[in-house]
């Protein structure tokens, strides 16, 4: 298939062969691990910076203004300037805070989102870890972020932070159920939790089209629950500036605050990437049934462009939510999850299992 031109497997295989030829297999593996680690760190940092810049521009356009346009052409280097500023800021030490936990919290949050990113399939042949429990691993690991938030709120020794962290903890733990169930619906459709298998099963059409209405319902529920998971959009009560200053990260300054800030945007990327992988076909191009001419044209666009394009469309949707709607109150938020989203999700899952058993979907 023409798709193979853009496969990264040839590149990775050649690097592997080259390294194995020069040094012992153990050393080669270690060098590969280091290369992958460095690449991921760079990707994390660059993506994070880019997403912050994108948010400011998107929000500016919606609010009828221009956004950053002084630092570099179109304000491109604004985030880098912000990062340098944050790096040089004084780390204000809090006397009565629990020092060890206070310093540990940002790291936990970053590590959780970093580990989740490791399993994402970016393009054909470009996936760092391909577990057979792929999606399960991602959900499990991204839940570790809650620990970081709760530790941050507790160890700051401030009333505002504690209230914000409690709210945030309750919210994230509740919405994880909805996220898991929505993703479970696609696992039932494709029959496997391994991400590469899920993507391969979408070669003839994305699940959101093949699974018709139940898949669309699952997609919408996933978007709502995913936005709540990452403390964004109409669910950002934990860091609502007009109510509790900054919630659980009030007392953080400098690079530690930058960690929280970065982790929030990267979590948004991960949520969008998972939506893309499971519902929108990952790096698969947009094929329509038997239109071979159209399909061939679609195949010419590289898979990595497909992946990032789809992810950024979902990210734009998430940003649109935030800048349009007012905030939900904490009890309304939890109400929404436990009384509306969860029952809907359960019914949807049962419905999908029934459909798959009967075979009433486009295979």
């Amino acid at each position, binding site marked *: 298939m023409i798709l193979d031109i853009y496969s990264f497997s040839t590149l990775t295989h050649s690097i592997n062969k080259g390294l194995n030829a020069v040094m012992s297999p153990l050393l080669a593996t270690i060098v590969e691990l280091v290369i992958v680690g460095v690449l991921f760190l760079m990707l994390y940092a660059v993506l994070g910076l880019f997403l912050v810049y994108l948010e400011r521009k998107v929000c500016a356009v919606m*609010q009828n203004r221009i956004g950053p346009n002084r630092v570099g052409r179109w304000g491109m280097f604004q985030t880098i300037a912000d990062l340098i500023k944050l790096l040089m800021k004084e780390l204000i030490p809090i006397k009565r805070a629990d020092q060890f936990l206070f310093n540990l919290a940002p790291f936990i949050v970053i590590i959780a989102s970093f580990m989740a990113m490791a399993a994402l399939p970016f393009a054909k042949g470009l996936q760092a870890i391909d577990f057979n429990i792929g999606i399960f691993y991602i959900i499990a690991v991204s839940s570790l972020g809650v620990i970081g938030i709760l530790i941050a709120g507790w160890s700051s020794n401030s009333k505002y932070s504690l*209230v914000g962290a409690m709210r945030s903890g309750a919210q994230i733990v509740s919405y994880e159920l909805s996220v898991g169930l929505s993703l479970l619906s696609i696992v039932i459709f494709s029959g496997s939790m391994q991400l590469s298998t899920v993507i391969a099963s979408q070669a003839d059409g994305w699940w959101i089209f093949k699974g018709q209405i139940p898949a669309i319902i699952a997609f919408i529920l996933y978007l709502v629950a995913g936005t709540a998971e990452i403390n964004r959009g109409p669910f950002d009560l934990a860091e609502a500036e007009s109510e509790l200053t900054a919630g659980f990260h009030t007392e953080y300054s400098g690079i530690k605050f930058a960690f929280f800030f970065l982790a929030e945007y990267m979590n948004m990327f991960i949520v969008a990437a998972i939506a893309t992988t499971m519902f929108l076909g990952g790096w698969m191009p947009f094929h329509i049934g038997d239109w071979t001419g159209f399909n061939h044209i679609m195949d010419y666009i590289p898979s990595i462009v497909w992946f990032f394009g789809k992810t950024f469309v979902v990210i734009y949707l998430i940003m649109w939510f935030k800048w*349009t709607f007012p*905030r939900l*109150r904490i009890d309304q938020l939890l109400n929404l999850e436990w009384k509306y989203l969860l029952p809907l999700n359960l019914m949807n899952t049962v419905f999908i299992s029934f459909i798959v058993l009967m075979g009433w979907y486009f295979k």
Partner: protein
Amino acid sequence: MSEEIIKNIMVGEHEDYLINMGPQHPSTHGVLRLEVSLNGEDVKKVTPHIGYIHRSIEKMCEKDTYKQIIHLTDRMDYLSAHMNNEAVSLLVENALQIEVPERVKYIRAILDELSRIASHHLWWSAFGMDLGALTTFFYGLRDREKILAIFEESFGSRLLHSFITPGGLMHDVHSNFRKDTLEFIKYFRKKLPEYKSLLTDNIIFHQRTKGVGKMDKKTSVAYGVTGPSGRGSGFSCDVRKIAPYGVYDQIEFNEILKNDGDVFSRYLVRMEEMEESMNILEQLIDKMPDGNEYTAKMKAIVKLPEGEYYQRVETARGELGVYVVSTGAKHPYRVRFRTPNFSNLFVLNNLAKGGKIADLVAISGSLDLVIPDIDR
């Protein structure tokens, strides 16, 4: 006496969880300190502490002439500056029994209604921002700029004009005044339905505001809550209808009353008042006489005859009352400003008790407080 004071300070130390909102806080719209005692997320008691921007305006007025007091009244409720000025001017004119030209009365009413629209629109932007819909702030300020441009063209300043003085106006308005106002009305009429679908018809907004902060009519009268906050509870208190001044008895307009008394009703009252103000503006511009007279003949030194005088005016936030005791000198003996925000603030404890912190923000936003008016 001192034991009572100490007991009052320590009342929060029991088991209550005390949080201070302010004096510097993004959503109290001014320097107001709210001491909130919480039980988890539920608010048990709200105690406002004021006085951070007390400038002793009433004492300063005792050393100023009547024409100088105008400049001080601007700075009380700065969003309805024209109406504050008009209160003092009307008081002086009624006391001296001076008749101002018709044209001046119409211009004063036009300025009042434009300020009312600007003030309600700024309230709308800030209210959306408090609830989390951050975009409303930019839309509101963009439209308000048009009104401020009209003001700047005529008076030279955007916010604090000191334009309405005893006897008439400081000087004549710009020749484009009528045309610009009509253009603004046309522009704003197109925008209001957009804002309605953005915020008023939004289900999240309904959940945050319906049934929250209920105030019945008795509480409203007992605490003296006037203006749109009072009218949202069915308290008919519009001074333009009760005790008309200027040309308001010749204009047809409705007083907007709602009966539910929650945050959503107060919101709707203000949105509909903006529409009413535009209708009033169209009638005023229609009927405004031509010409270029802008003041009546007045002596340079104004001395009120001995006695007491009281003038009531409807500002954007409620009823402003000016009470002057004069002993026949060129300075007043005592000036007292009965400001609407002072009474509106202290009903906050009644409304916010039993709700959550997020509700407290919504309620204090719906009462539309401007803190310099409270502290004077």
